[in-house]
């Protein structure tokens, strides 16, 4: 009896979530398509694009470096603790390199960019929406997709590729240094272990993730910003929702990568 009473509500809730996801996915698809059209027609300002590339890439670098160093050190220390006395320590080089390049570098960089860039984009565009600045653009015959969305969405991918590449390098070097200081593993031995199980494809795999995350983060943040309604409270609400959506999207995308690209 309880089940029959609950079932319609549950079905309705699942249907509601499905409809919301479909609506957002459709909105983002249209946004991506219009961005691509603006790019092909040469309607994206190079100045706006490079400005966004600087804000997303160069200005995120310090925080990405801190995260990369710490993740490299932690991975190395935990591996050293587990391997000492049971597994040859040169394997640590492989574990650190693979963990950082395949997973930690792209995902932690994405989390940093979500917090630093994604949240800012949603709050910025949301504020523009509720203060009628987006309407002002339309009234002046400008298309906000070309002026605001396209430079941000297009800058996300190269910025992430750059950041993930640097994050991988710094994370591995930090892990190598930590291995020397904590378990006394020399650089040569560390690299021997790293090369033993290394595939060149791992680098492309990592950068493919960077491209995917670099598309998802600005796409979701711009989409949520332009959907904002309801004053300062609305900006807060849409920024929180945007960060949640971005984190879930990145993690789901990350979970889809191994079955799609590692088999």
């Amino acid at each position, binding site marked *: 009896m309880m089940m029959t009473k609950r079932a319609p509500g549950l079905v309705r809730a699942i249907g509601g979530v499905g409809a919301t996801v479909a609506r957002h996915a459709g909105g983002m698809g249209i946004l991506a398509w219009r961005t691509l059209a603006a790019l092909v027609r040469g309607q994206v300002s190079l100045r706006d694009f490079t400005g966004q590339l600087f804000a997303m890439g160069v200005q995120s670098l310090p925080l990405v470096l801190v995260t990369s160093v710490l993740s490299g050190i932690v991975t190395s220390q935990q591996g050293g603790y587990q391997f000492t006395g049971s597994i040859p320590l040169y394997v640590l080089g492989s574990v650190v390199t693979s963990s950082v390049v395949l997973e930690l570098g792209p995902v932690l960089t994405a989390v940093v960019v979500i917090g630093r860039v994604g949240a800012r984009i949603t709050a910025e565009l949301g504020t523009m929406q509720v203060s009628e600045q987006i309407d002002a653009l339309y009234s002046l*015959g400008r298309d906000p997709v070309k002026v605001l969305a396209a430079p941000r969405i297009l800058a996300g991918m190269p910025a992430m590729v750059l950041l993930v590449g640097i994050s991988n390098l710094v994370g591995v070097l930090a892990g190598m240094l930590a291995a020397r200081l904590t378990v006394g593993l020399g650089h040569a031995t560390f690299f021997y272990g790293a090369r033993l199980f290394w595939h060149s494809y791992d680098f492309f795999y990592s950068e493919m993730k960077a491209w995917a995350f670099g598309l998802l983060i600005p796409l979701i943040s711009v989409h949520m910003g332009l959907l904002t309604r309801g004053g300062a409270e609305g900006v807060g609400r849409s920024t929180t929702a945007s960060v949640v959506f971005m984190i879930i999207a990145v993690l789901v995308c990350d979970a889809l990568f191994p079955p799609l690209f590692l088999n």
Partner: protein
Amino acid sequence: MIEYRDVYKAFDVPVLSGVSFTVETGETLAILGPSGTGKSVLLKTTIGLIVPDAGDVFIDGQSVFAADANQLQTLRRKAGYVFQNAALFDSMNVFENVAYGLPEGALKKLGRREVTRRVARSLEEVNLDPSVVLTKLPAELSGGMRKRVGLARAIVGEPQILLYDEPVTGLDPVNAVAVDRLITDIAERTHVTSIVVTHDVEGALSISDRVSLLEGGKLRFLGTPDEFRRSADPLVRAFADRQAAVEAALAGSARSSRMADAKTPVLP
């Protein structure tokens, strides 16, 4: 000429319920009405910033809502829109904000010197000193100055239509009168078609050729300022005459205190 033809719009509740009227070329029309009655929504439908559920708006015979993207852009370029809170771009200084009112690519086509000249001229037209405000950010301006910069941005592209959304709301009486005079001066000098949404009844009656009153999403009155002052309609009287407004408010609150289920004061 702007023609509103049977415009309907509902959000959670109906806002516009079949509004039809025409604004002649060169005319200044004020739109008055109680708060939340759809004045700003109607203004935004003029250039397609809000899409109505039914009905259409025609600018010089061209449908706003049947227009393709290029036609809509052309229609929008015919109009200048002065937003309630100016809607200046926060990240741009006054020069960049006003220059944004020029057609896309103006800097390349006209050159920086000509763009600067046009921006300075527009700022002077709204009684702002370019040498003082040109490099300031919107956050560094007072409310009155922001409204004027918003007006300068709207007129710099020499539009044929000017749409004002509560241009004097939030201004002190001196600045409010100054903005009203600017609206009149611009209309007389450029023969632009103007629609002014406002709560300032005295200002509306002094600047407009005709006055309209929206109530409950419908057009309740449309006529000259003299006809507005002489109207026997109780709501129009409440707007035209402060004493009548006080009586209407008192009658409404007395009635609502008697009626436990009454949600809003009812005007006679």
